[in-house]
């Protein structure tokens, strides 16, 4: 591979843009196709399919074999609430390869001392999240169960179609939460996407156990359903 192609691939990743490296298995000729520049490409259909599934693989086209190296954006995890569960979640999310950011306007919680290795932003979700450009490769977990903090974050996650959206709180708390979201014109189909009570039911009790159940639920959402990227307009 030419260094300039490798550099382009790395740049696309840093910019959170999906791209595919096409390698001709006979001869080794290579090119990069970006998701937004797919129209008119001879391999548009298989590349589109590869982007949708997020899976690299071999394709045949007019008697030639190509390998498609699919690069979809690294999965982000945005956690609302710099609480005890979040402290347990931060190291295991990093181990799982998630790019985690914590948002909590309460400055007593959102301190670098509590989260030495994870970015913490001590500000309101409605201020912090828009420039972060939430997308389908983003997971959001809300742990404050304070509507002032969690609700605006959930609204943005639903609007951006994040692949995983979870919120801490009992069924009763969640019932009130979805009433508020419906009042803001979110549909039942949308609010059904929120995982609540949050986490797989493994009988988790401690903050660390809850963190494991939440990370497991995020991985389930990521791996069991193919990630989708929007078609170029």
């Amino acid at each position, binding site marked *: 591979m030419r*260094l300039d192609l490798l550099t382009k691939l790395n740049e696309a990743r840093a910019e959170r843009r999906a791209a595919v490296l096409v390698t001709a298995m006979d001869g080794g000729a290579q090119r990069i196709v970006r998701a937004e520049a797919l129209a008119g490409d001879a391999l548009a259909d298989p590349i589109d399919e590869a982007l949708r599934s997020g899976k*690299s693989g071999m394709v045949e086209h007019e008697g030639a074999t190509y390998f498609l190296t699919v690069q979809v954006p*690294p999965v982000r995890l945005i956690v609302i609430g710099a609480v005890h569960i979040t402290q347990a979640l931060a190291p295991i999310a990093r181990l799982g*390869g998630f790019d985690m950011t914590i948002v909590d306007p309460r400055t007593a919680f959102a301190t670098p001392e509590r989260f030495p290795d994870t970015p913490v932003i001590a500000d309101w979700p409605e201020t912090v999240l828009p420039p972060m450009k939430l997308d389908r490769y983003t997971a959001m977990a809300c742990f404050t169960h304070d509507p002032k903090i969690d609700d605006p974050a959930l609204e943005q996650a639903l609007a951006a179609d994040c692949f995983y959206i979870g919120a801490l709180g009992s069924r009763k708390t969640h019932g009130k939460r979805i009433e508020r979201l419906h009042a803001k014109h979110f549909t039942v189909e949308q609010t059904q996407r929120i995982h609540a009570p949050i986490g797989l039911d493994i009988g988790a009790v401690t903050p660390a156990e809850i963190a494991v159940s939440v990370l497991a639920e995020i991985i389930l959402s990521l791996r069991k359903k193919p990630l989708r990227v929007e078609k170029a307009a």
Partner: protein
Amino acid sequence: MLSSDDDILGQAAVWRREGRGVALATVVETWGSAPRPVGSHLAIDSEGHFLGSVSGGCVEGDVVTEALDVIGDGKPRVLEFGVADETAWRAGLSCGGRIRVYVERID
């Protein structure tokens, strides 16, 4: 610390810019119970340093050896490891799967 694709492809570019010979190995096909999915990368430099994986540690040694040849002559090649292959047993892909690995030089 575990390496992600970020680190692997990023490190490959860094090594190349430093003037080292670099090869990239990519899992292009798997059959059976292969430990790493298609698209997994292993970056190798001319000193034999490597980052990433194409198996569960079974065949990396052989891939690194082949990669040094690829760095030498610049010709990409496809390596196959599996239970049907005598050398694979030697290399030790003991999981019972079969994989094909594409090794190319970064130019």
